[in-house]
């Protein structure tokens, strides 16, 4: 098709659009809604069991703060990645909080080992929290995908992997309040393992979920 004719058709297809809010504002909006949703689940199921006991545990609080910071920075990076011309260094934002989160859990493993010896590092299968984790992740995932699809799929795999990291972090935050306090090795393997799997799935499905969408009536 001739480019002049093509432009005529694109212009005829034009609908008004509202410019997207800045990435940090969209990330804040998403995080606020996701936290409300997770809090509602935790509250409804009366799942806060040891929150009062762990409130004074500095390492636990630092771990949760790092988890929340990972969710926020991953969401900001994901929303930046769908804006043409963004500074690619933003993609590294979650590295520091994620590192702190890992370090905190790793420190917990060392403390458990020092206190209880080999028993402190015993790993067991714990599938009980899987349904809660899935329920906590569903709505934030759907919201995030809808919001990401409003942008440009410049790096769809990276965008969805970052989004998955944000979702998994929020779900983890809920889970930490939702069930009996686990040994750090359990958190490291099951919780952070699940985060890694979820991020990998996000990266794998990125091109499919956020793939390029064109005005089909134009061409």
């Amino acid at each position, binding site marked *: *098709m001739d*480019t*002049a004719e*093509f*432009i*005529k058709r*694109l*212009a*005829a*297809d*034009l*609908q*008004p*659009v*509202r*410019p*997207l809010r*800045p990435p940090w504002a969209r990330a804040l909006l998403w995080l606020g809604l996701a936290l409300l949703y997770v809090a509602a689940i935790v509250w409804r199921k009366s799942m806060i069991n040891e929150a009062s006991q762990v409130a004074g545990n500095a390492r636990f609080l630092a771990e949760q703060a790092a988890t929340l910071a990972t969710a926020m920075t991953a969401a900001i990076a994901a929303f930046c990645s*769908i*804006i*043409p*011309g*963004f500074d690619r260094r933003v993609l590294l934002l979650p590295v520091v909080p994620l590192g702190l989160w890992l370090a905190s859990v790793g420190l917990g493993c060392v403390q458990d080992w020092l206190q209880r010896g080999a028993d402190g590092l015993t790993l067991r299968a714990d599938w009980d929290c899987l349904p809660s984790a899935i329920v906590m992740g569903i709505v934030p995932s759907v919201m995030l995908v809808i919001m990401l699809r*409003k*942008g*440009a799929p*410049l790096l769809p795999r990276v965008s969805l992997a970052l989004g998955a990291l944000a979702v998994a972090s929020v779900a983890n935050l809920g889970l930490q309040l939702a069930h009996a306090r686990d040994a750090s090795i359990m958190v490291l393997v099951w919780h952070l393992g699940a985060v890694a799997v979820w991020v990998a799935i996000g990266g794998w499905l990125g091109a499919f979920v956020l793939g*390029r*969408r*064109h*005005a*089909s*009536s*134009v*061409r």
Partner: protein
Amino acid sequence: MGRTIGQEQNLAALMRAAQGGDREAYAALLSTLAPLVGQAVRQRFGFLQPQDIDDLVQDILLSLHASRATYDPARPFLPWLMAIARNRMADSARRYVRRAAHEVPSEHPPETFPAEDANVSASGYGDVEALARAMTQLPRGQRQAIEMMKLREMSLKEAAAATGTSVGALKVSVHRGMQALRKAMSTTD
């Protein structure tokens, strides 16, 4: 794509108007951008045929169209546009490399079967003039459908959008047109 500040501001103003739904401003913006984008594409893919360059330019404009909500009116326009253009050019380069990796250049297509029917290309495509005459005898809708789908290799969706008819109606037109052409060509033989 060296531009003055005035031109940059003018483009940004047109884009803001386009986000508000102003079709004239949008057409003016795209008409201004098409040669700029074409120049950027030619600089990077000078080896492409003019038709391929046009296709890539249209692809970039289409991506701009789909992503127009991501433009922040408070920010410069050209860096935003060029990020889209670079992304589409990179996609195009990847497609080109993939295609080239799977293509095997061959001057003499191997003959697969000795039977004449299986080697139509070796004996040409039959009476081209008779085919052209038969095409002119087809009803307008059928002729248009065959031209778009068989000669220009457009997809059903593309041809339906171009003709303004439904995909179903287009399928029927192509089917009937091909039947009529077969009949006409067999009488010619």
